[in-house]
């Protein structure tokens, strides 16, 4: 097997502002994404999935920092790299699509120019060439009448079109890794589906790898090949989508599956996970899911369970991973 495109090791992210002792939001997260892979990161709001993604793109909000760990892109360490050289990767190597296409586009710049900015900076294009590139990308993302639309301002376009503009912008410099932060959450369900299809097709065409953050297991099931489930700043389960979703070993993953509607078995009742995720500032010691876990044992409360391999390429951070599999079968 070749080296992964992106390799995240023991990444910890915390709030550093306003206190001497930083609050950890993401703790000891590790995963790999190989070339052309579609990797999903699933979790609730506050699980740290978005911050993990933003850390890869050096786009953490003010006051939030990578505290420890390593992010290697194509063999190069990104943590600690000077900001100017790191920003040069953004666009031609790594690109990002945000959740809210309304606020993520500059309201006072024509969308064509916003797409053309990257190609002009990196591909050495003139203004006219980069505009042609922008229009080409808009056509590729299925925007009708791209020549006219390129002169529009974001507020003049619909949500679906705006997200297509974001995609055109992200892919305009042929990146090898595309970071997506809930790219379809703000869209109507029908548009959601189209946009996901489009993303998949374009990534297949260009061979770009996808890191896809979402709270929606169904989206991951449709789009991704591999996934990691995050809970309260930790990866609690990871593996191929097929493995994890058919044989979940962490009680949280199970809870997520049980609480989401299943279109193959519409008669199955939805079972919500009892309780709420812990506050980042007052996380319990041990497994953060322990207070809500139906399988909790005493050992869960003392230390964070290590990630154990339950099947080839499938890991779960749960002491009771084996028993949970049996319980599931028994049910």
């Amino acid at each position, binding site marked *: 097997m070749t080296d992964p495109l992106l390799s995240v090791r023991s990444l910890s992210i915390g709030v550093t502002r306003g206190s001497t002792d930083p609050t950890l939001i993401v703790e000891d997260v590790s995963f790999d994404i190989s070339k052309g892979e579609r990797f999903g990161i699933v979790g609730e709001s506050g699980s740290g999935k978005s911050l993990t993604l933003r850390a890869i793109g050096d*786009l953490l909000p003010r006051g939030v920092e990578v505290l420890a760990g390593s992010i290697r892109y194509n063999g190069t360490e990104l943590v600690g790299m000077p900001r100017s050289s790191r920003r040069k990767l953004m*666009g031609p190597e790594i690109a990002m699509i*945000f959740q809210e296409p309304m606020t993520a586009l500059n*309201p*006072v710049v024509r969308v064509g120019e916003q797409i053309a900015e*990257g190609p002009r*900076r990196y591909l050495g294009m003139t203004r006219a060439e980069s505009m042609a590139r922008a229009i080409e990308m808009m056509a590729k993302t299925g925007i009708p009448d791209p020549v006219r639309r390129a002169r529009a301002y974001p507020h003049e376009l619909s949500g679906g079109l705006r997200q297509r503009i974001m995609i055109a912008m*992200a892919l305009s410099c042929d990146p090898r890794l595309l970071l997506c932060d809930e790219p379809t959450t703000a869209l109507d369900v029908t548009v959601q589906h189209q946009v996901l299809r489009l993303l998949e097709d374009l990534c297949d065409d260009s061979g770009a790898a996808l890191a896809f953050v979402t709270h929606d297991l169904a989206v991951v099931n449709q789009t991704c090949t591999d996934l990691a489930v995050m809970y309260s700043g930790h990866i609690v389960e990871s593996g191929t989508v097929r493995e994890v979703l058919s044989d979940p070993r962490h009680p949280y993953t199970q809870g997520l599956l049980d609480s989401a509607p299943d279109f193959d078995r519409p008669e199955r009742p939805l079972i919500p996970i009892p309780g709420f995720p812990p506050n980042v500032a007052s996380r319990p010691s041990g497994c953060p899911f322990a207070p809500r876990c139906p399988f909790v044992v005493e050992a869960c409360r003392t230390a964070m369970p290590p990630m154990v391999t339950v099947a080839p390429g499938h890991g779960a951070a749960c002491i009771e991973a084996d028993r949970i599999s049996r319980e599931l079968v028994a049910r």
Partner: protein
Amino acid sequence: MIDRLKFIPARLVQSLPVALGVTLIVFLMAHLLPGNAALALLGERATDASVAALTEQLGLNRPIWEQYFIFLTRLLQGDLGQSLTYQLPVTDLVFQAIPVTMSVLGYALTLALLISIPLAALAAFRPGGARDLGVRTYTLLGQGMPQFWVGIMLILLLGVNLRIFPVGGYGTTMVDHLYFLFLPSLTLAIAMCPTIIRSLRSSMIDVLGSDYVGTAKSKGAYGVALLRDHVLRNAAIPTVSVIGVNLGYLVGGSLVIEQVFALPGLGSLMINAIFARDFPTIQGVTLFVALFVVVVGILTDVVYTMLDPRVDFASKDQT
């Protein structure tokens, strides 16, 4: 763009009542003078004949609405009356003085932007940091300094001690003007900066935290390019209206600064007229300055519209 500027005629019409109100107030000023205005202007030792003549000249013996009507008709013909001291049409005096005042104002605004933009950016990039603290201290101090005193201090520092800049006068050529007007303009700029920096700093902090700046960063923009392409224009939008609202106040300040640097502008014209009790000239300058503020209000809307494509005064007026 052209479409969205179609609001201008309607906006001009909307300003008419305000402009009319301005003329009314300027007109009524003459009637606020205690007792007989002519007597008040000429002083206690005026002869009856001269009082009568001035009363006639100012039209004070007619009914008040008729006087206002005459005042307006003359105004529309560009007639603001005769200056009592210079025996010249007030319009001529005002138009002679306008270039000086407007140059100082434009020059000062340019300097103020050149100072404010980098300072605001410096403060906004790390709010709460040492630079931010420094910039905020300056805005606090800057607002507390009387403008004319700042002028005197600049004369003391740059004109007297370092002998870099002339401390008064206006010069004759364009280059001369730029050189002579530097200190007065800098004085006015120092008065403008705190307001501009405050507004620009807080809007820059908002913009820097916005999603689209995140997008710009994800496209590889950083440093000056990020500031120029994605922060400045967005942050400028609220600042434009702040400048527009405060320009009137600053025009007032510039009139006082002219006095410090002995510039032959509207300020000196007005102050001299006050000491000479030359009421038509006082009225003329006041009227011009107020109408200028009304025009600035319209200009602010135009600039605002050009900067922000989301604003559409034109369609708002139709509904």
